């Protein structure tokens, strides 16, 4: 059934997929989602630790930072497999974003500490980049070599699990990436339940004093810090959505083969068959779009790469949502119950689709890029 067709000269992709399947049998995705939801948590510490031990939190982190130094293809294989298994730790918004943010930072003790903690799982990093209203409101004020942060960031994954926040903030000179440990004075965290079961954080800085070393990267604007990390995170999200959507098709095929109405499995009714074909088509296109993003990113044309990524995230998001909507419907009344896993797929798809750009916005960005040329 649908899966990204990736070059796999040394078998890494296949190995990653196997490993995810093995891990998912120890930590079944749906059970983990329900536990997080019941506990108001935003992560599963044991699961994340296991993912770190498997080497998955630093796939895109350069080797000289202790990361795996693998390519986007391996990240995509991993994210897709996690999506299939509904293992919904924030691999894109924590591991991928953190790896890219740290990877583009200059060497420093703080950077290295964070990188090594990311890889071995001793630290849990929560990037925080989205401002409370409109543009960035977190700023720095030099006070004796250090900084004072004020303002708030929202839509922070892992806000409760985090040991350290990676905060992108505006500074008088442009923008900086700040390392902010939990428990520091002036930092507060609140959460609201996410539709996919994980709590979503808002973090507030009230004259939060930081040492000089907390500034681990600088740039002229938040976007110059974020562009590359977001590009990679979007591909990872697209892959996760494609995997999730593909799996939802399979689950629905299985269900409709088993569900008998009027003396026949409902999968034998032509209308259901064609709907399943449409869903499968969406999943195939999502997978192909993700592969195209990987291939195009490897070619080195920045604009082409950006377009391919926008297309992949849009396609995979639309596909996953639309597949899961029909999947829930084809599960009949059962699909409307909380105990049936298919609803969790729909909710997870909704959340991932809304992360880092909904399809409509991404498509418009694609067209703007293409037509600006």
């Amino acid at each position, binding site marked *: 059934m649908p899966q990204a067709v990736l070059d796999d000269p040394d078998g890494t992709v296949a190995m990653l997929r196997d490993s995810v399947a093995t891990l998912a049998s120890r930590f079944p995705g749906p059970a983990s989602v329900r536990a997080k939801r019941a506990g108001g948590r935003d992560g599963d510490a044991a699961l994340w630790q296991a993912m770190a031990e498997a080497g998955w939190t630093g796939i895109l982190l350069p080797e000289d930072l202790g990361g795996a130094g693998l390519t986007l293809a391996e990240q995509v294989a991993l994210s897709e497999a996690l999506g299939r298994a509904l293992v919904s730790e924030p691999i894109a918004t924590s591991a991928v974003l953190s790896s890219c943010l740290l990877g583009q930072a200059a060497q420093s003790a703080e950077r290295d500490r964070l990188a090594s903690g990311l890889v071995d799982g001793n630290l849990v990093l929560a990037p925080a980049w989205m401002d409370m209203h409109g543009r960035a409101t977190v700023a720095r004020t030099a006070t004796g070599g250090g900084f004072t942060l004020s303002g708030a960031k929202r839509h922070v994954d892992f806000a409760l699990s985090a040991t350290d926040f990676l905060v992108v903030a505006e500074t008088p000179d442009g923008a900086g990436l700040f390392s902010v440990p939990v428990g520091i004075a002036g930092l507060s965290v609140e959460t609201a339940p996410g539709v996919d079961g994980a709590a979503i954080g808002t973090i507030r800085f009230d004259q939060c004093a930081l040492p000089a070393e907390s500034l681990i990267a600088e740039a002229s604007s938040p976007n110059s810090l974020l562009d590359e990390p977001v590009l990679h995170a979007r591909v990872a999200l697209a892959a996760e959505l494609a995997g999730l959507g593909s799996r939802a098709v399979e689950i629905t095929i299985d269900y409709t083969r088993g569900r*008998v109405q009027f003396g026949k499995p409902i999968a034998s009714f032509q209308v259901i068959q064609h709907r399943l074909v449409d869903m499968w088509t969406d999943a195939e296109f999502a997978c192909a779009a993700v592969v195209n993003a990987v291939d195009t990113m490897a070619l080195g044309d920045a604009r082409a790469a950006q377009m391919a990524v926008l297309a992949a995230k849009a396609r995979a998001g639309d596909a996953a949502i639309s597949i899961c909507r029909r999947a829930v419907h084809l599960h009949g009344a059962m699909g409307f119950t909380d105990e049936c896993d298919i609803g969790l797929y729909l909710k997870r798809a909704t959340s991932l689709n809304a992360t880092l750009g909904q399809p409509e916005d991404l498509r418009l960005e694609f067209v703007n890029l293409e037509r600006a040329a």
Partner: protein
Amino acid sequence: MDWNALSDDAFRDAFHDLVERRLPADLRFMRKQRPLFDEVAVWYHALAEEGWLAPVWPVEHGGMGLSPAKHMIYVEEWGRLGCPRIPDHGIGLIGPLLLEHGTEEQKAYYLPRILSGEHVWCQGYSEPGAGSDLASLRTAALRDGEDFVVNGQKIWTTLAHCANWIFALVRTSRDEKVRQRGITVLLIDMTSPGVTVRPIANLRGETDFCEVFFDEVRVPVENVVGEVDQGWNVAKSVLGHERIFLGAPTRPEIAIERLEKLAQARGAFDDPAFRSRYARHRLDLYDLGSAFERFAKVLRDGGELGADVSVLKIFTTELYQRITEETLTLAGEDARFFDDIEAGNGHVDAMNLFLDSRAPAIFGGSNEIQKNILAKAVLKLPS
């Protein structure tokens, strides 16, 4: 009081007046769509006291005896004024069935207890494995002296956990060639030994439907409605003019109000691209009103609805879904929240409606079943 003699406007005013006097403010425009009996009991009893509880029951049984036309106004105003849904199986389903098929004793015993709220009813039709295919149900009732002994299971039983009586379709015979035969309607006291209720949480995390298990439950034979083995005909007869309400534009109306509120708060009406998408939904809703009116007119003119009325149910449930999906798109990154999202001074329950909108396209006969029926009964297509 001959309500049917009132002008439509006077009747609306009377309803309005009643709501103003008797419906507590905190029960108006409730977020919860299926409140439990206790949560809305004050409104239930108020309706009973005022004589407004049973709109279509005959006057001699404590009803209002409304014509279909007046009943439509009743339902319209109910929604427009934000009255909460009450557990209405007794009023809407069991009462009319007893009136048509029940014995005099049954009517005398059950009807007043529905009006008083002493009996809260639920409806046991669906079973696991028999969703849209009611005729294949398996819950068995075996005759044993003056009782039936019931064993089996019902599912998707709305509000069973706040009901004390269940109106159940049970299988009393397997010998018949036509599978619709051999089904009997039983009224079962849910406080009887052997009845267990398990609430089922839905996508929204609420529990408005349940499983109901019957383990050697004894039910006196006088609790049969109609004839033994002929329950299919009894159950079928509930449809009638009320099928139009399955196609009422209520849900998409609520959904578009939320979409507009969020769009207003986010300035989306200034974006021509949003406006274009919104226009499509808005016109779908407007035109649904025109289509609804086409069938409502039939009822007002004293006619009967045909199978074609299902078209409303399909359209309204799909439109409800489309609008809630648009609202999530508009919500942007906030579509990740399970709870209501900020919209100016207030909040919008975008996710609540999105998830809720999954249900009506399935319950009451999935839209695929509705289309099968339309294909056969209206378009007369060959099989």
